[in-house]
Structure formats: structure tokens, C-alpha cells
């Protein structure tokens, strides 16, 4: 079976073709670097994504601080993690790199702040 992917590892967005036989990868073509091969391998087994969102800040110069995850999570857990992010409000100030939620839902990654928001 042939499966086709658009690689999301970098802006180049290579079209990658994967030849599968009984779920086993026989060949990978079209990628221009090793990240592409790792991406399609992961994509076939268990797609993983990072997400970015924002988190409420109490008493800050802005009402929100942007956040992202310290690593990727299974694609089907994205909305679970979004629900967790929505529950939290951090007191100002917050700074880039602060851990907003450690080990979110036991997935082994943290929700980390990506922007300084000073107290108002």
C-alpha cells in the first residue's frame, strides 16, 4: 500500500511517499532529510503534535500569556490538553520559560510560557 504525506518538520513541506506492506514500511521516498523519514514513521505509528495556545494571566499588562508544550503529544490528546490549559490562571508577572502546567495529563510534557507578561 502506498501512503502519501506532506512533511511538517520544516517549511519546505516535502511530499513523502511510503510503501507499506502489512503495516511495515518497505520504502520512504521524496524526503530530503532524515527528519522526514522519522516524521512519516511516527505518523504511521502514532501521530504526534505540539500545540500553542494562551493562558490567562491575572493582574498582567496583557490578559494572556502565550504557551506551548515542551514536546509533542499524541494528536488525539490535543483537545484534552487544551481543556487543561483553559482551567489555569497564572498570577502576573510571568516569564518566558515558566512552567504553567508540569507534566500535563501525565503525558510527559510541560505547558511552558513563551512570552513575558509583567504585572500591570
Amino acid at each position, binding site marked *: 500500500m502506498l501512503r502519501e504525506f*506532506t512533511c511538517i518538520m520544516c517549511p519546505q513541506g516535502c511530499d513523502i511517499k511510503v510503501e507499506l506492506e502489512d503495516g511495515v514500511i518497505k520504502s520512504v521516498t521524496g524526503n530530503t532529510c532524515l527528519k522526514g523519514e522519522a516524521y512519516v514513521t511516527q505518523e504511521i505509528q502514532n501521530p504526534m503534535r505540539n500545540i500553542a495556545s*494562551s493562558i490567562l494571566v491575572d493582574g498582567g499588562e496583557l490578559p*494572556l500569556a*502565550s504557551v*506551548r508544550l515542551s514536546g509533542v503529544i499524541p494528536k488525539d490528546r490535543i*483537545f484534552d490538553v487544551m481543556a487543561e490549559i483553559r482551567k489555569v490562571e497564572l498570577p502576573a508577572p510571568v516569564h518566558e520559560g515558566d512552567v504553567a502546567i508540569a507534566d500535563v495529563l501525565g503525558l510527559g510534557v510541560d505547558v511552558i510560557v513563551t*512570552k*513575558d507578561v509583567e504585572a500591570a
Partner: protein
Amino acid sequence: MKHVDAIIVGGGPAGLAAAIELRKKGVEDILVLEREKRPGGILRQCIHDGFGLTRFGETLSGPEYAARFVREAEELGIPCLCDTTVLEVTPDRHVFASSSEHGMMEFEAGAVILAMGCRERTRGAISIPGTRPAGVYTAGVAQSYINLKNKMVGRRVIILGSGDIGMIMARRMTLEGAEVLGVFEVQPYASGLPRNVEQCLNDYNIPLSLSHTVTDIRGTDRLESVVISQVDDHMQPIPGTEVEYECDTLILSVGLIPENELTWMAGAEKDPGTSGPAVDESYQTTVPGVFAAGNVLHVHDLVDFVSLEAEALADGAPRFLAEGGLPECPLAVRGNELVGGLTPARVSGTSDVTVSFRVRRPLRDCTVEVRQGDTVIRRRRMAKALPAEMVQIKIAADKLNTTDDLEVTVTC
């Protein structure tokens, strides 16, 4: 009136990168003028990741990418006047600006670096018929409401235009609980990057409809519905294909325009290919001592290339300050019919140059050639070329002659 060696108009990624690099090249007297309350530009609201792979070798969110430049500029002690609007740049490099704190200010600049970035095309710019209800936003405005002001803009959303910001907003609004009914693109191909079609639309089962556009906007106070029509090969709506979608929000991601009012006030000539200023290999406009880089020059797909371009600009400006002028650039740079947005417009043939352009339509197995007369200076084979991806070709000075114009051709 105060003299400043280098005034930088705009404290976004281009302006900050230019300022930092100018300081590193020995220009001490620098002033950055920024309209917003803080430097960083549009990146402050671009909270998704994917920035920095080229410039820093790692993937960062927009605020993190911007913060690296903001911090470095602070460490170098580069002054940045925020909340300050530049009103005019004159041909003899006087810069008029105003702020609530300082009132009217006039500066006499040794060199002016234009780094105003770009702005979004609006509903008016593409003339969508219909009523004028609330709920019609450009993608960047919606992004600023959601990511900076904590205001959700709507619940049932149609997106017109498959630019990167539009697709990123489709994902963002889905994550925040909105229902994105679809992304509609008037051209027969996506205008943003393939990775964003994949990770912003396909990941969330958001349909992308090519060769479709909005032909009516309905609603009195708030948007109630839009009518979508299929378009023909000439992008004209096909009667009978209309479908009405109930929605409360229409997001427009229909292109970016370099923000060049100050550039034209300064007397710079326009490059018809980019709609930005015509520049030479040193990023100098047709007005001596007035330089431009980043999205004000031509709209980039990646901020990494904005930073790198602004850093390259910092080669020419210090030479201008030291020597009072830069070498003549008598050679024109021209492209064939598949080459769009070609810059620079002129070169000397004595310096290294980076030529940037976009192919005019998606191509497979094409060849890019840069020639002077009968001599092919560079040839690059490309398995795939998309309008969404800017092509940049570096040419070393020793490959160039000083008599023939540069011809950039794409052939399939």
C-alpha cells in the same frame, strides 16, 4: 533637531535585526522608532511555533523569536522609542515622528532604514459585495483579538483565502472551540505553505476548497451568512454554483501589502514587480541613504528570511555612512514570465548579491537560471516550486561581470 547616524523605522523582526547588526558593524548612534507599546512587531501575536529553524536551528514560537532580538538589542543598549509614529521621511533623510510622551520630533538621519513591514488586504481591497455587518475580520485582526486581548471573535467561521495566517487562524479558532466550516481559495492552489495545509487544516478535518470565493455577505448587525461560488479559469464566479453558509464570522486571509507610505514620501521609486521600493544589491532604495528590508521590501513567508535580509542590509548602510555613498548599480535585474516579485532591481556586478523571487504558479521539475549575456552564472534544478515559497539565490561577486544585465529565468 537631533542628528542620528541610523534611524530605523519599525521595531519588528526586520528593524531589530538591522539595528543589532548595524551596532555590531560599528554604528554607535542608532535609534529605533516603533509604533506599538513594545518592540517585536507582529510576532507578538503569532503564538504558534515553527519560527527560527533557519536563523537559530530550532523551532520557536513568535514571541520567543522576537524576544531573542529584543533582548539582544537591549543588551547592546540600542534605544527604541515605542508608542512613536513616524509621520514623514523626506528625501534628504529628515524623519518626523510623534508620540504622546515627546510630542513632535524631528531627526536628521545619516541613513534611514525602512522596516515598516506589511499590512493585510481587507474586504474593501478585494471588493466583496454584500452588507456590512460585524463579524468580518482580517486574519491578523482576529489573531490579535484572540491571542493578545482574550476576545473570541466568533463561533461559526468561514475563512476566505488560504494564506498561512488564515490557515493558522483556522486551527487556532478550532482549538478555542469554534467550528470552522471551511477555507475557500480563489486560486486553483493553496497560497500558503503545504505544511500548514497539513497541520492546520487536515489535522482538524477542515475542508479546503480551491477555485472558490465569497460572492455575498449577508446580515444586518452581525454576519448571518456568506455565499460561496465556484470560479472559472479567469477567477470569475460561475453562476448557479452559489452555496449559502450560515456563519457569524468571516476571516479574510487574502494577501499582504508592503506598508510603504513613508517610502513614497521619501521619494523612492516603486518596483512594479514587488510593489515595494526598487532597491539595489545593498538594499538601498533610489533615494541615497534610504534603505529597506523585510516585509516592507517584499512579503516573506518566513521571518527567518526577514531577519537574514535585514542583517544583510547592515553591510551597505555603514559603508554609506563612512563613505557618503555606495557604488553605482547600473545593471538591471530582470525575470521572465514565470518569475514574480524579483528583487533587487539593480546590481553593480562588483558585490555578492542575493536574488529573491517567487514562481508565478506551482511548477514541477523546473530549472532556474541566472545569466549575464550568454553566460549562465547559476543554474538550479527544482523538483517542486510553489508561489508560497520564496526562492533565493546567492551569487558571489567573482561570478559577475560589470557590463551585462542579470536575467533570471524559470523554465519548465
